[in-house]
């Protein structure tokens, strides 16, 4: 497979997953801000926290501190200047998919093309009140259709693995960031263990990750900060947990190794991260500082993506204008 095609597939996996995860982040905040004060409505600005967790401080500057829902929605969903906005993610996924059209199945291509086309019909003005939830559901559904199309129609070969790899890397990043929202909302939270506020805030987090039932099913325990953090970081069976996705990425590279019949340079660091996470207890993580731990995971994860790029010959990104200027078809 052309390295450029592999790179595009990897990024398609990332972009689609990113759109979904931004929707989940917004959903978590949407739930938090509807809580009455005595049930966990924090005194800090949750929308601001979400923006910070999404890395918007660079772009919005001071405005990020006082951002209200409308600004957050505009920035996180619609802003084409925000490289991670949902609209941008769908647009880039579609551009990438178009550039490697033949590497996708008809169904997978249509899933992305349709998401991109329909996204253009939404504007911030349309997203008021209950419509926000509709839009978030729509985004998650589009992501699910893409994932399902891949699962149901793609050859299990390198292309499938690169998409899977992109999705896993992106999800590690986003689950870490989702947990970090909590850190930003209620700093320092860990002293407040067991308070009513705390309970509902952590519950919101589980709900946003579609993890509430899974949590109760797997732990048979109450919602506690430690329990939720442990679940979202260390659970081996929950598909949005950090450790699950590190293993998924590791498995995707293992499949690439066997598909190509040669070892990959990026395998070792991935396995190392997986092993390190498995050896940690939640107490160790919390004692050393949740925020610091999450920051470290995000950095390691970014490095692993670079190792992958190196191993499979991904090129430095070339400006879009290179495609222009030769349009002399007869």
């Amino acid at each position, binding site marked *: 497979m052309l390295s450029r095609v592999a790179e595009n597939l990897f990024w398609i996996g990332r972009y689609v997953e990113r759109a979904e995860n931004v929707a989940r982040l917004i959903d978590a905040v949407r739930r938090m801000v509807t809580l009455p004060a005595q049930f966990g409505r924090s005194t800090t600005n949750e929308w601001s926290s979400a923006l910070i967790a999404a890395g918007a401080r660079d772009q919005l500057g001071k405005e990020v501190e006082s951002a209200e829902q409308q600004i957050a929605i505009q920035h996180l969903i619609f802003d084409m200047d925000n490289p991670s906005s949902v609209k941008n993610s769908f647009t880039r996924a579609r551009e990438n998919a178009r550039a490697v059209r033949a590497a996708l199945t008809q169904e997978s291509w249509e899933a992305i093309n349709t998401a991109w086309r329909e996204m253009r019909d939404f504007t911030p003005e349309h997203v008021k009140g209950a419509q926000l939830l509709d839009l978030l559901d729509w985004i998650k559904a589009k992501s699910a259709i893409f994932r399902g199309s891949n699962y149901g129609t793609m050859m299990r070969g390198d292309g499938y693995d690169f998409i899977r790899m992109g999705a896993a890397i992106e999800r590690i990043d986003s689950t870490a960031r989702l947990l970090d929202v909590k850190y930003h909302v209620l700093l320092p939270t860990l002293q407040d263990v067991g308070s009513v506020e705390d309970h509902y805030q952590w519950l919101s987090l589980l709900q946003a990750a579609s993890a509430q039932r899974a949590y109760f099913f797997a732990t048979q325990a109450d919602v506690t900060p430690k329990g939720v953090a442990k679940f979202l970081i260390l659970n081996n069976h929950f598909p949005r947990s950090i450790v699950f996705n590190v293993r998924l990425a590791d498995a995707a590279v293992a499949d690439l190794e066997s598909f190509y019949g040669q070892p990959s340079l990026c395998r070792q660091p991935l396995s190392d991260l997986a092993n390190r996470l498995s050896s940690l207890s939640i107490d160790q993580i919390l004692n050393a500082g949740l925020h610091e731990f999450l920051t470290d995971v995000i950095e390691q994860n970014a490095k692993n993506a670079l190792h992958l790029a190196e191993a499979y010959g991904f090129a430095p990104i070339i400006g879009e204008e290179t495609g222009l200027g030769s349009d002399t*078809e007869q």
Partner: protein
Amino acid sequence: MAFDEMQNDGQVREAYQVLQRWLDETHQDDLHQKRREAEALFRRLGITFAVYGEGGDVDRLIPFDLIPRVFSATEWDLIDRGVKQRARALNLFVKDVYGGKEIFRAGEIPESILANNDAYLPLMDGVTPPAGVFTHIVGVDLVRTGPEDFFVLEDNARTPSGVSYMLENRETMRRLFPDLFQSGSVRPVDGYPDLLRKTLTEVAPEGAGQYPSIVVMTPGHFNSAYYEHSFLADEMGVPLVEGSDLFVEDDKVFMRTTTGPQPVHVIYRRIDDAFLDPEAFRPDSALGVPGLMRAYRAGGVTIVNAPGTGVCDDKAIYCYMPEITRFYLGEEMILPNVPTWRCSEPDALAHVMDNIADLVLKEVHGSGGYGMLIGPAATKAEIDAYADRVRADPKAFIAQPTLALSTSPTLVEAGIAPRHVDFRPFALVGKQVRLTPGGLTRVAMREGSLVVNSSQGGGVKDTWVLTS
């Protein structure tokens, strides 16, 4: 009154009987509904062409007309022989231009014609590609003015586009109107990708083995014809590459893959000569592959169509096609040219100036329907301005009579109405010349308009060639 492909003087032509029955049985509202379905389908599948820098939706649809254009077996036989003859003659001419230049020495064509031709590449002098083929994919634009009267309007010998529409239009018709094809009287077109692959395989460089490595090369997904590039690569099951995917080492071409460099033997490029290789042509181009021409001249790779083939398809050469056909094949043209006046010749120029309001004038090096004057449709001011340009540089222009292009029934808002059409079949030239029974019928959607180019609002139709 222009000749109509379907009916004249109330008589429906034989080849259109099936369509006539279908149209009689089908309510027009249903046709409009189906047309909307077709458009939705094209959008969903991404069968679009991209237009950047004009504002609005970057993703445009070429209007698709549901009513097919039909050729009988007899008509097709004529087209088939004529187009193949044309493709052979064009190839022999280019081979000669970059070889012995015999046609000039014989005095059939003035050699000075090369000096004025930007498409002539001195770099190609002395190069003979595998099988002696230069232009492997030839799109010949045909027009018709009567039952037996076909003319070649233009040759496209560089990177002709539109074949994906031939295939997709048929696919769409079969999907929307399966019953229409039940009788089995329409010859299939879906063999094209296979024939293309066969052609590309036949012209691989020596030593490429039985299964040469073939790629389609695109300038990228911002190009207006990108869909077609991607479609053809997909249909043939070969990689779609951009310049940055390739590199040259020891006069061999390789592509960068996840398992390291892999050899490339045949490049079906959909990118202009000037952008192929920054070392040989435009040094500022980031689209090409440094060293590609070196590898090509050393025989390490086949470029399809060959660099420099544009020398045969501009309008200055076009009017010498009768001489060219006679010189190389010893034959008269099966499909004649449209009568053409070369404004470079004083007598012709005088005639053109006297009759400019009745003529069509074209730039010798123009294409795509741009830079034309259609005398009968132009205002006095437009004609005067154009005449000034012609007088200033006569050799840059040719003139042709305004042909009454045939019309074909077309679904428009007001119902079914005649619209002017042309036709582009695609000849494939490898060790033999092959023609898929079909092609791209382009239709001018505006009433009375003669301009069928998609860049000027033209649409497309499915084209049927009947088995009998």
